[in-house]
């Protein structure tokens, strides 16, 4: 099948700290599709999303992030360049948000094995906290024309119990000719 599950990780330890990494990403797909259900332990209502792609021998030389989002009151377009990671603001509910609310993040990373293209990641995401919330589209540029075999995500003060990441490979082995 075209869409294949590669790996999952669920945070079960309340003392969990640090990023979530995936290593040894198979190089046999064309695209990656990543689904995150997440919450942060950061002592605030919301927390940001941080990500990076790299491989065993090199890292991106620079990062850029652009987003467009609404919080129920204000629509904002924003950007960040020069950070050492990609960043999506307010992507996760934080520790002081309504209990049990988690964010949904749907991420596509195309042509992740290419050695001639930088990596552009697209994400739609959102969470609603019953009286407040956040939803948006976010793009992230990794200036990195190497094959990606490692990926990490992080948030301030790390992830709450119940956070889950699922990574899928999308292959492009066509079944038809005559295109």
């Amino acid at each position, binding site marked *: 099948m075209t869409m294949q599950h590669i790996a999952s990780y669920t945070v079960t330890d309340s003392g969990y700290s*640090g990023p979530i990494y995936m290593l040894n990403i*198979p190089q046999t797909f064309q695209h990656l599709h990543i689904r995150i259900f997440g919450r942060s332990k950061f002592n605030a209502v919301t927390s940001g999303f941080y990500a990076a792609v790299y491989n065993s021998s090199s890292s991106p030389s620079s990062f850029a992030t652009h987003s467009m989002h609404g919080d129920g009151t204000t629509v904002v377009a924003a950007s960040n360049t020069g950070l050492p990671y990609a960043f999506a603001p307010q992507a996760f509910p934080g520790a002081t948000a309504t209990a049990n609310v988690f964010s949904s993040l749907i991420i596509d990373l195309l042509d992740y094995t290419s050695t001639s293209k930088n990596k552009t990641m697209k994400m739609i995401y959102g969470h609603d*906290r*019953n009286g*407040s919330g956040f939803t948006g589209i976010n793009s992230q540029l990794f200036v990195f024309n190497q094959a990606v075999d490692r990926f990490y995500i992080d948030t301030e003060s790390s992830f709450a119990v119940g956070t889950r990441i*699922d990574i*899928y490979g999308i292959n492009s082995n066509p079944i038809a000719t005559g295109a």
Partner: protein
Amino acid sequence: MAIRRFSTARPGSKSNRLWDQDTAQGAMEPIASQTQTGTSATISFTSIPQTYQDLFLVVQSRSGTASTYTDIYARFGTGGGAVDSGNNYSTTRLITDGGGSYSTDRYSNSSLIYCNIISASSTTVGVFASSLMHIPNYKNTTSFKTMLIRSASDANGTGYSTLQVGTWRNTGAITSIDLLTNANYTPGSTFTLYGIKAGS
């Protein structure tokens, strides 16, 4: 190949949680599909299998209500029971109507999630709206349920493009979904539920 941790650091210490990939498997499966032929205003999916990781709904719809546009709404049920119609839902929306206007709004303590703005009977005949609805972790019993919705309803001079997120304040596993509209769904409206599989 099992999923393994490469780090054995103590909980609470600064540690990197690593894992190796599991054996690949096909991920997306259709569960059920309905096409409106009558005059109902509610489409229901019941007895949803509890064997997937996420749910994914693809909807193409139009309403017969006497206006240009109206809404689709969602409600959820758990434990095999009826859907929850209490004020246990909320929505945050990001919307444009293409006319130089964009906005964000929210609905709190609602009896349903606002999913999409769809064309109705006063819109050009033949125009149906499209929606993609993601429901991650639908069967877990420790978190509220989140629904992320991406929708399109262009009608050549009017229309909407929206990104919306809703919460059902219930930690029960979702076993049923109602998708409701005003008046009725126009015949030809389609509703397909897919399951997205994952490893443990």
